[in-house]
C-alpha cells in the first residue's frame, strides 16, 4: 500500500514538472510571437510615417499598368482602397518571398522598394476608391 502510494506520488510529480515545462514553453512562444508582432507593427508604423503623397502618386503609375486603377480584378488582384497597414505588410511579405507570396513579378518589384516607397504607395492606394 505504502509502496504503491509512493509510486503513485512519484508519477504525478514528474507529470507536473512536464506540465510546468510545457506551459513555460507555450508562454515563451506566445510572448515571443507577441514581441514579434509588436516589432512588426512598429516597423509598419515607421514605414507609414515615411510616406510622401506626391512620391506615392508618381510611383503608383508603375502599379496601375497591371492593377486596375478603379479596382477591377480580372486576374490581377485589386489594390485600391485596401488598408495601408495591410498593403505595407503584403509588400514586406513579397519582399521576403514569405509563405504564399511567391509570385515572381511581385517579388521582383518588392525587393527594389525602399521603406519610404512602400509607405508612400500604401498611403496612396489606401486613399483610392474602386469604381
Amino acid at each position, binding site marked *: 500500500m505504502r509502496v504503491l502510494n509512493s509510486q503513485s506520488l512519484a508519477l504525478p510529480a514528474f507529470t507536473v514538472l512536464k506540465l510546468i515545462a510545457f506551459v513555460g514553453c507555450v508562454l515563451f512562444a506566445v510572448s515571443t510571437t507577441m514581441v514579434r508582432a509588436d516589432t512588426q507593427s512598429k516597423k509598419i508604423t515607421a514605414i507609414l510615417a515615411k510616406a510622401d503623397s*506626391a*512620391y506615392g502618386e*508618381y*510611383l503608383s*503609375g*508603375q502599379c*496601375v*499598368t*497591371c*492593377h*486596375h*486603377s*478603379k479596382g*477591377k*480584378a*480580372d*486576374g*490581377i488582384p485589386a489594390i485600391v482602397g485596401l488598408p495601408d497597414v495591410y498593403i505595407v505588410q503584403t509588400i514586406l511579405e513579397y519582399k521576403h518571398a514569405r509563405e504564399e507570396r511567391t509570385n*515572381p*513579378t511581385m*517579388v*521582383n*518589384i518588392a*525587393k*527594389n522598394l525602399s521603406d519610404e516607397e512602400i509607405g508612400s504607395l500604401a498611403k496612396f492606394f489606401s486613399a483610392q476608391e474602386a469604381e
Partner: protein
Amino acid sequence: MYKLTRRRFGGVLGASAMGVAAGSLAAPAVLAAAKSRLVVIGGGPAGATTARYVAKGSKDVSVTLIEPKHHFTTCFFSNLYLGGFRTLESITHGYSTLAAEYGINVVHDVAVDVDRAGKMVKLARGGDVAYDRLVVTPGIAMRYDSIEGYSAEASTVMPHAWQAGTQTAALKQQLEAMEDGGTFVICPPPNPFRCPPGPYERICMVAHYLKSNKPKSKIIVLDAKDKFSKQALFQEAWVQHYEGMIEWLPKEVTGGVKAVKAESMEIVTDGETIKASVANVIPAQKAGVIAERAGLTAESGWCPIDPSSMRSKKDESTFVIGDASIAAAMPKSGFSANSQAKVAANAILADLTGSKKFPAKYRNTCWSLVATNDGVKVGADYTGGDEKIDVTSKFISKTGESADLRAQTAEEANGWYAGITKDIFG
C-alpha cells in the same frame, strides 16, 4: 513672338474643329494661350499615356494629342486574336474618354513635319500646332528594303501584321482560307524590333488555330536570328502542345531570308526557295517616319534619349517615348512604352509647372500565351542610369512549371490587359 504663336494656335483650333473633338478647345482659346502647351504626336501606349498623365497632373497645361486613327487596335494581344482567344473589337479602343474626362484635344490628323526652331507641328490637312513641349511617339516603321522584293504593296499579300488592325485582320483571313495541309511560313525580324517574344507567341497561337482546325498543316520559321526571347519556354510549348507541327530554322542554318516573291508566294534563303500557303513576313524596323523628319533619330534609325526622363538627346524641348526610342535594356513593348510615359509625364510637368521631378523608375513585364490556359512571363525593373536605362533586377517563368501556375499566369495576362488599357485610354 508670343502674339504670333497665339494667333497661329488659334488657326489650329479652327483646323481641329474640322477634325473631331473640337468642342473642348474652341471655347477656351484665350485661356489656352495663357497655358503652357504640350503636343503629343501618336496615340498609342506611349503617347496616349503621356497625354493622360500630364492632363491629370495639371490644369495649367493644355494637351493636344495628334493621331490619325479614330480607333486604336493594340499590338499586344493581337496574337490572341489570331489564335481565336480574342475578337478584334475587344482589343480596339477609342479616344472619347481622353477628350471628355481629361480635356485632351484629340486631333485626328497626321503630323507631317516638325519645325523645332519655331516649335510648331505641321499637320497634313493644313495648319500648325504650337508647343512648349513636344512628345514624339510614332512607334515603328518597316524597313521594307531589308528584304528584296518586299514592300508596302507586297505586305498586302504577305502581311507583316506587326502594326495591329487591317494587317492583323488580313493575316487572320489568309489563315482561315488556307487549306488543311498548307504551309504557314513566318519570318521573325532581326534585333531590335517591337515585342521580342511576339513572333514566337504568334507561332503558338497560329499552331493552336491550325491544330484545332487544319491539323495536317505545318509551320516553318525562317528566323533572322540564332536565338530569341523566352526561347526555352516557347520551345517547351512547341513540343508539349504542337509536336511535329513547327520547324524553327535559325539564321545559322538558312543564312536568313534574302528575298520574297509575293506573286508566287515564295521565300528565298541562302540555299532554298520555300513555297508558302500563308507568309507572315516581318521586316527589320526603325523609328516611325515623323521621328526621322523631325531630326530626332541616330544613325541606327532609333531615337537617343536621356535615361532619367526620356527627353530627346537631340532637342531638350522634345521627348521620345516607346518603340521609337533607344531605351537600352528595355524591350520595345506596350508595357515599356506605358511605363516610360509616366516618367516622361513627371519630367514634362516639372518643366512646365515647376512640380517635383522624381527619379526615373521603369518596369516591363511581357506575358505570352502559349496554349489554352498556359501562360509564361518575363519582366524586369529598370532605373535611369548616367548613360543608359539599366536593369535593376529581373525574373522569368521556368520550364516544367505546374499546369495550375501556368493557368494563373495566363489569367494574370487578362488582368494586365484590362489594367494597361484603362491606364492608356482612360
